[in-house]
């Protein structure tokens, strides 16, 4: 069960330099397993930095991030990468697809690190494509997809390893209303699947959604009640 416990978390950029600044200051947060949490705040408030730290993409300057009682802030690269591979699914604002590859080949990327058989890989990719409703575009190059399709491809890739934690950074910022609503439908599926989801956004569409458990506000690198 992936309970996330964040204690006294600080992130200092450019330490020992004149332009040093704290992107995160003394963050304390608990996210229960299966909870969907919205991180709200203006640009530069530290939402993306917090997601990066939870996902092990960067290391905090101080503090702990406990996932399943394991402090991922202290893990060496090989273990934090394995944690990210197994436990985390990232969804980015700019989709971050591998250009020049098809939808199927993009979703395949995390499975390249496994020793699964061809059949198992095919099954996993198909399941992820179905969840994100993108299987009809599986052989299409991602360069020719619309914004919404690209986002669904990114979602399928994020869930192909069946991670327990989904981290979404401004997932609807580049989408029109119709595609944003489609994302919310997928979010509801995540709720049913009992995934832990943290979404950094300032989109009002997420206000008052039934599937959202909690909304946490951030300002100047700090959590505000």
């Amino acid at each position, binding site marked *: 069960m992936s309970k996330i416990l964040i204690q006294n978390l600080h992130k200092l950029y450019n330490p020992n330099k004149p332009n040093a600044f704290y992107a995160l200051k003394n963050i304390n947060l608990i996210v229960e397993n299966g909870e969907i949490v919205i991180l709200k705040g203006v640009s530069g408030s530290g939402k993306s930095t917090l997601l990066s730290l939870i996902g092990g*993409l960067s290391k905090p300057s101080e503090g702990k991030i406990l996932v399943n009682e394991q402090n991922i802030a202290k893990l060496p690269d090989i273990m934090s990468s394995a944690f*990210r591979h197994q436990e985390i699914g990232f969804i*980015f604002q*700019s989709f971050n697809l591998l250009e020049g*590859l098809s939808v199927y080949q993009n979703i395949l990327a995390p499975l*390249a*690190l*496994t020793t699964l058989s061809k059949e198992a890989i095919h099954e996993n990719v198909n399941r992820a494509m179905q969840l994100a409703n993108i299987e009809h575009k599986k052989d299409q190059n991602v360069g020719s997809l619309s914004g919404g399709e690209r986002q669904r491809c990114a979602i399928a890739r994020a869930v192909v390893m069946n991670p327990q934690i989904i981290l979404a950074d401004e997932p609807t910022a580049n989408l029109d209303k119709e595609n944003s609503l489609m994302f919310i439908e997928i979010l509801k599926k995540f709720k049913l699947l009992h995934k832990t989801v943290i979404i950094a956004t300032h989109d009002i569409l997420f206000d008052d959604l039934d599937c959202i458990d909690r909304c946490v506000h951030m300002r100047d690198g700090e959590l505000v009640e």
Partner: protein
Amino acid sequence: MPSKNFIEYAILLLFKDRNDHFFSFLIFSFIVFILSSVLFISDSLQYDLIQSIKSHPQIVVENMRAGRAYEMHDGYVYDIMQITGVSNVEGAVDGYYYFAQKRVWFHVIGDAHLAKDEMVIGQGVQKEMAELYYKDVFHFLNEERMIAVKIDKIAPKGTNIISNDAIYLNPNTARAVLGMEMDEYSKLYVTVPNPNEVSEIALKIVQLYPSVKATSQADAIGAVRHLYYYKGGIFMILYVIAMVSFFILLKNQVGLVYGEKKKEIAILRSLGFCIKDIITLKFIQNAVVSISAYLLGVAGAYIYVFMANAPYLRNIFLGSELENSVSLTPVIDLNLLFLIFLFGVIPFLAFVILPAWKIAISDMSEAVKS
């Protein structure tokens, strides 16, 4: 050891970025092609010349005075025969005839099997003679008279390495052409059955006649090897220049490409690829590029040298005034090919993997946000 899935995905990404790798593949292939061609030609010529030397008796004696070759008479043959360990001494007539109309030198070699009025000529000689309509008979000019000799045969192409500029004549006719007396020889071939005695007998010959040069087979082979010794030659310098230039180009290209690829590496990191995985991925991709470029270069060189007979490059090595259509014997020195591999592929991989490693260890959070 990376899994099959990982290797397949690395190749998939390689094909996606094939245009980025094409330039380095092409240049590296070309350098390996040129180097391998040079080595193949030099090894092949070296092999043929050494085989030719080995077919002669153990010691060749030439009379040198003030750096010029002088003839030897029967007395030399008799005296050398008296040395213990020598089983036979054979006089040979050998020299150069200047064909003034074409401004080229022909190598005249005495051959006792030929009649006085006939000769066998190399293919290069035949071509030069034919251009001036000497197709059946050729007229040699010496200081006193004109000597007409019938062109009996053309030496086979396979012997071109030694016969291309050669004219084989009866020894007496050869003497007449070269202006030598009837009991004179230009070279003596000394047969020594015991290989352990060769160098000592060569020394005794020089002691007997201080003006002569007695070259043993080993010395002659050493001289050929020295001539084609690639490490000391200009080709080693060319090799170093070519490789340094290539790696400077590669470094610039890799810098540009990896600047653009930073985001791709960041995406893979966000999907769970660790630094080791990124390095392994780049290693596999660039190993495929460099090894395939290496194999293409070597295969291209083999075809160019041994099937197409190395047009253009061949004449640099043969160094003859006559055009020579010599057939190169396929000889491959695996040690040299391994050296090219070692000094080509390994630095290639290092040059491309280091920038990937530098990117992979940097903070990925900014790269995935942009």
